[in-house]
């Protein structure tokens, strides 16, 4: 369960996120959509405790991310934008480091690591330095790190960016498989991804929520019935006609 209330963040004169409120419940996969610079990543950074909000609060499974940071972060798996990892480490070493941080040891650590590796199909590259891996593999290492401790809440910033179609399919299968009892937020630019795995789509523009509905309901708002039309309409003010022509 993620409870975001009246979240606001400014960077100097620029309002990145303005008065954003959102409650995501277990079983929901929320697709976070919006043009570049809309405030998706900033919201996620605040929800995971990396950035302090100017105003408002975020609660992860009831734990406030600012006042009860560690308890909240324990319940959380996070894939940051760009899937950063220590490049000189191999995926095996990196995941070992994460098991240590997640206080898993012995059989529990082995089981968790094997599950994360199998889920993200990292078997072939376990002993190559992460910096030598392709973008797709690096993304999957980041994903493995996020799901390692089987968290209640997953926040994934562009989990399928840089993956080929087969890998995208696999990662979507993985997310769908975890969706039953978890609370998941994914940000993405791929509208087909929202239709494929999300139970709910939230579109934000200039730091504010401009739409919040099921993907089907959103798509149904335009005559064409296409999600990209409603996206373009809400975030640029374009008419549906010009969108449909594209």
């Amino acid at each position, binding site marked *: 369960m993620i409870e975001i209330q009246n979240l606001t963040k400014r960077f100097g004169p620029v309002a990145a996120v303005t008065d954003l409120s959102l409650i995501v419940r277990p079983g929901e996969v929320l697709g976070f959509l919006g043009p570049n610079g809309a405030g998706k990543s900033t919201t996620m950074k605040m929800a995971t405790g*990396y950035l302090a909000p100017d105003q408002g609060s975020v609660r992860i499974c009831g734990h406030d991310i600012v006042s009860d*940071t560690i308890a909240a972060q324990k319940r*959380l798996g996070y894939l940051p934008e760009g899937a950063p990892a220590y490049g000189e480490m191999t995926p095996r070493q990196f995941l070992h480091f994460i098991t*240590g*941080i997640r206080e898993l040891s012995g059989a529990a650590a082995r089981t968790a690591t094997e599950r994360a590796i199998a889920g993200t199909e990292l078997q072939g590259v376990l002993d190559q330095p992460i910096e030598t891996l392709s973008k797709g593999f690096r993304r999957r290492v980041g994903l493995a790190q996020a799901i390692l401790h089987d968290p209640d809440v997953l926040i994934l910033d562009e989990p399928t960016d840089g993956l080929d179609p087969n890998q995208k399919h696999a990662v979507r299968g993985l997310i769908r498989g975890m969706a039953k009892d978890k609370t998941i937020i994914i940000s993405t630019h791929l509208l087909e991804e929202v239709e494929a795995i999300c139970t709910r789509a939230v579109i934000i523009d200039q730091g504010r929520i401009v739409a919040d509905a099921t993907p089907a309901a959103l798509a149904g708002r335009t005559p064409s019935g296409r999600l990209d039309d409603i996206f373009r309409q809400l975030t640029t003010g374009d008419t549906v006609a010009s969108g449909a022509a594209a």
Partner: protein
Amino acid sequence: MNLLWPVFAREFRSYFATPLAFVFIVIFLFAMGAFTFYVGHFYDNGVADLSVFFGYHPWLYLFLVPALAMRLWAEERRSGTMELLLTLPVPLWVTVLGKFLAAWAFTGLALLLTFPIWLTVNYLGHPDNGVILASYVGSFLMAGAYLSIGACVSSATSNQVIAFIISVVVCFLFTISGAPLVLDAFRGWAPLPLVEAISSFSFLTHFAAITAGVIDLRDVVFFFSLIGLFLYANMLIVDLRKSG
């Protein structure tokens, strides 16, 4: 506390994942040897002690330790792993301490590898090994103090070169704060107690006291307080930058 080990171990191993550890240790040992034997005329002194060797430690640390510390935080910021590190459930003080201890342990390792010079001086004569041990302890403490300054500066920037240069300058001021270069800037206007306080920050003075063979509690407390102070500042800087 259980988390201190993974943070420490990751950081410590990262030195050995690249040629950094090798280059640092080789340069460190080479410079130590070169200064002791060629600049310090170790043999010509005809005295079986290591005071010449230890006398150069502050000056070598001045450049080598900031080089070791500059990457501690700046690299995390540059590569984006800072975001990963700060969203993992690790209390900030554990991260700060773990990273610092890893760098300190690495410096300790480099220092231990200077043992051939200890063997040499014992082969040549009968040095006071108690004094040598005290000097090693003092040198290690001083290296920790330099490192804490470097770690603190590194946390304020994502640019390693800037981190290096500023660290060297700050370390230099602490090294020679007992010298006229620093004190004259204060003597004209500052009250005497302040001038004395500044001069008491001199690493050289505290280190010289220890290398004389006496580990005075005050000198130990001085170095540990300084480490504590800069690590605390390090923590505040990381925390402050969360506010964007």
